[in-house]
C-alpha cells in the first residue's frame, strides 16, 4: 500500500517534471521567435512607411535638411560588393577545389581548413583594421577598393568550406567517367565536378554575399562613406550599412526615417538572397547524380 503510493507520487513527480521541461522549451521558443517577429514587423512597418522614390533616386541632403535619399549608398554598396565578390569568390572556390580535389587527407589541407575556420571567426572590425593598414595606409587615402577587399577576405572562408563540401558530395563515379574519357584533370574538375556541384557552390557564394552585404564595421575606415555620387574605386564611397549607421546615431528625425527605410531595403536584399538559396537547395543540390 505504502510502496504503491510512493510509486504513484514518484511517477506523478516524473510526469510533472516532464511537463515542466516541455513547457520551458516551448517558452524558450516563444521568447526567441516573438522578438524576431516583433523586430521584423516593426522594421517592415517603419521602413515601408518611410520609403519613397526620393530614397532610391536622390543623394543625401546636407545635414539637417529634410528629404534626399540613399541612391549613392545603394550604388556604393553594389560597387563595394562587386569588388568583394571578384576578390573573394575566385580565391574561395579555388581553395575549396584544392581541399576537395587535390589535398584530400593531407596535413596541409587540414591546416588550410582550420585556418579558414579561424578566418571565419575573426571579428569584422579587425578585418577593417587589416584592410586599413594593408591598403589605406600605403595609398594614403580611403577607398572603395579597401572596403571591397576587407569584405572579400570575409567571404573567403564561407565560400571555401561550402565549395569543398559540395565537391565532396559529387559521386566519385562522375570523376572517373571524365578521367576515363581522357579529359585533362583540370578540365574534368572545372567542367564536370564543379559544374555538377554548382548549385551548392552558388548557394555558398550567396550566403557569403548576404553575410558581408550587411557588414558595417569593416567599411568604417576603409570605404569611409561619402555624401555624394561616387563609383570610383579610388575614392571614398558610401554604402548602405554605413549610411544606416550614420543616420541611426544622428539627431534628426528625418535621418532616422531614412535609416529605417535603408534597413528595410538591406534586409529585403538579404532575405531574397537567403530564400533563393533555400529554394535552390531544397530542390536537391545534385539532382540526378547517382
Amino acid at each position: 500500500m505504502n510502496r504503491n503510493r510512493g510509486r504513484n507520487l514518484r511517477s506523478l513527480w516524473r510526469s510533472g517534471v516532464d511537463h515542466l521541461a516541455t513547457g520551458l522549451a516551448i517558452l524558450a521558443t516563444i521568447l526567441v521567435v516573438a522578438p524576431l517577429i516583433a523586430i521584423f514587423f516593426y522594421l517592415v512597418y517603419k521602413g515601408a512607411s518611410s520609403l519613397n522614390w526620393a530614397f532610391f533616386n536622390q543623394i543625401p541632403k546636407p545635414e539637417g535638411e529634410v528629404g534626399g535619399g540613399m541612391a549613392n549608398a545603394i550604388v556604393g554598396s553594389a560597387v563595394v560588393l562587386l569588388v568583394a565578390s571578384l576578390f573573394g569568390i575566385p580565391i574561395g572556390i579555388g581553395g575549396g577545389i584544392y581541399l576537395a580535389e587535390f589535398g584530400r587527407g593531407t596535413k596541409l589541407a587540414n591546416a588550410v581548413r582550420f585556418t579558414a575556420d579561424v578566418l571565419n571567426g575573426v571579428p569584422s572590425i579587425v578585418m577593417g583594421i587589416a584592410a586599413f593598414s594593408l591598403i589605406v595606409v600605403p595609398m594614403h587615402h580611403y577607398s572603395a577598393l579597401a572596403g571591397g577587399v576587407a569584405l572579400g577576405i570575409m567571404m573567403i572562408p564561407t565560400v571555401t568550406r561550402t565549395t569543398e563540401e559540395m565537391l565532396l558530395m559529387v559521386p566519385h563515379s562522375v570523376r572517373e567517367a571524365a578521367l576515363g574519357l581522357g579529359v585533362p584533370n583540370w578540365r574534368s574538375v572545372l567542367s564536370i565536378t564543379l559544374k555538377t556541384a554548382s548549385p551548392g557552390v552558388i548557394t555558398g557564394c550567396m550566403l557569403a554575399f548576404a553575410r558581408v552585404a550587411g557588414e558595417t564595421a569593416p567599411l568604417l575606415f576603409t570605404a569611409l562613406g561619402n555624401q555624394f555620387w561616387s563609383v570610383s574605386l579610388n575614392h571614398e564611397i558610401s554604402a548602405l550599412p554605413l549610411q544606416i549607421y550614420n543616420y541611426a546615431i544622428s539627431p534628426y528625425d528625418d535621418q532616422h526615417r531614412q535609416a529605417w527605410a535603408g534597413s528595410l531595403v538591406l534586409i529585403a536584399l538579404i532575405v531574397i538572397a537567403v530564400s533563393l538559396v533555400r529554394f535552390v537547395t531544397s530542390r536537391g543540390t545534385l539532382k540526378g547524380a547517382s
Partner: protein
Amino acid sequence: MTDLRMPNPVAAPSRSRAEERNDSSATDAPVGSVSGEVSAVRGYLLSRGNSAGSDRFFAGAMLLCALAIFALVALIAVELMTQSRLSWHAFGFSFFYKFNVDPITHLPLFWDPVNGVFYALPFIYGTLVTSLVALCIAVPLAIGLAVFLTEMCPLWMRAPLSFFTELLAAIPSVVYGLWAIFILVPLLREHINPVLMAIFTEPGLTHLLGWTGLFGDNGLFGGVNLGLGLLCGGVILAIMILPIIASLTREVMRSVPNSQREAALALGATRWEMIRMAVLRNARIGIVGSVILGLGRALGETMAVAMVIGNSPEIHLSLLSMGHSMASVIANEFSEATSDMHRSALIEVGLALFLVTIVVNAFARILVWAVTRGAPARVQ
C-alpha cells in the same frame, strides 16, 4: 598471339596527317570510317597532346588559392603587430591592466586620447561583461529552442522555425543596432530597468544580501537609468548570438544516434528524462563548444554594441552604467584618431581581440569536431 597491329604509330608522323584531316574535315572528310586507318576524331584527339603542363598549372593555381588563406591570416596578424608596435613599446603589458588617477577628481583615468593616456582595461571589462550577460540570456533560450526543435516540435513547424532562426542570423548587425536604439533602449529604460532597480535596491534584500556587493545603490543595478549601457549591449548581443548557438546545438543534438533515445525510452523514461539522459548527456561537449563559438561571435561583435553601450571608457559595477567594448572603441575612434599613438593603441586593442577570438574559436571548433566527428560545423 601476336596480333599487335599498329595503325597509328607514335605522335609525330600521325600528327601532321591528323591536322590535315581535321582541317579538311569541315568539307567532306570520311567521318568515323571504321575501315580507314585513322578516323578524323582519332586524329584530332591524337593531336591534342598531353595535358601535363596545364594540369600542373591548374593544380598549382588551386594550391595558391588555398595558401592565400594562410597568407591572409598571417598578413593580418603581421600588420596588426607592426602597426601596434608604437603603443606596445610605450606601455607593454601594462596596457591591459594599468590606469592613471585623475589629479582633480581622484577617479581612475584609463583612456584620454587628448592627454595621451591609453590603457585598455575598461574595454576588456566592457567586452567581458556584455558577453557574459549575452551568454546568460542566450544559452538557456538557445538550448530550450534546440531541444524543442529536435525533440518536441511537430514536423510541420520545424522548417518554418528553423528558417526563422536562420533569418535572425542573417539580419545585419547595424539593423539590430538601429532597432536597439529606438525600441530596446526605451523598453529597458521605461519598463525593465526600473523593475530590476527596484529589486536590487530594495532595502530588505540589500540588508540581507548586501555582502555580495551586488545590491544597493552601488550594486549591479544602481546608478542612473539611461537605457543605454552594458545591460543593453548584453541584451542585443544575446539576440544576435542566439541563432548561432541554437543552430549548432541542434546540429550536435541531431548527431546523437536514435538508438540512444530508444534505449532510454525503452527503460521507461519520460520524454524529459530521455532528453536529459540520452541527448543532453551525449551532446554536452558539443553544446559547450557551440556556446563558446557563440562567445567568440559576441566578443567580436561591433556595430550593434557600439550603438547602445554608451561609449565611455569607465568601469562601474552597475550594468546600467555606460561602458565601452574592445570592438566598439575601435569603431568609434579609429577614423578620428589623429595621433599615431592613439591609432597604434587602437590597433593593439584590435590585435588583442584578434588573438582572443582565435583562441576561443579554435577551442570551440575542437569541441564541436570532437562530437560531430569531423563533420564540419557551419556557422553563417
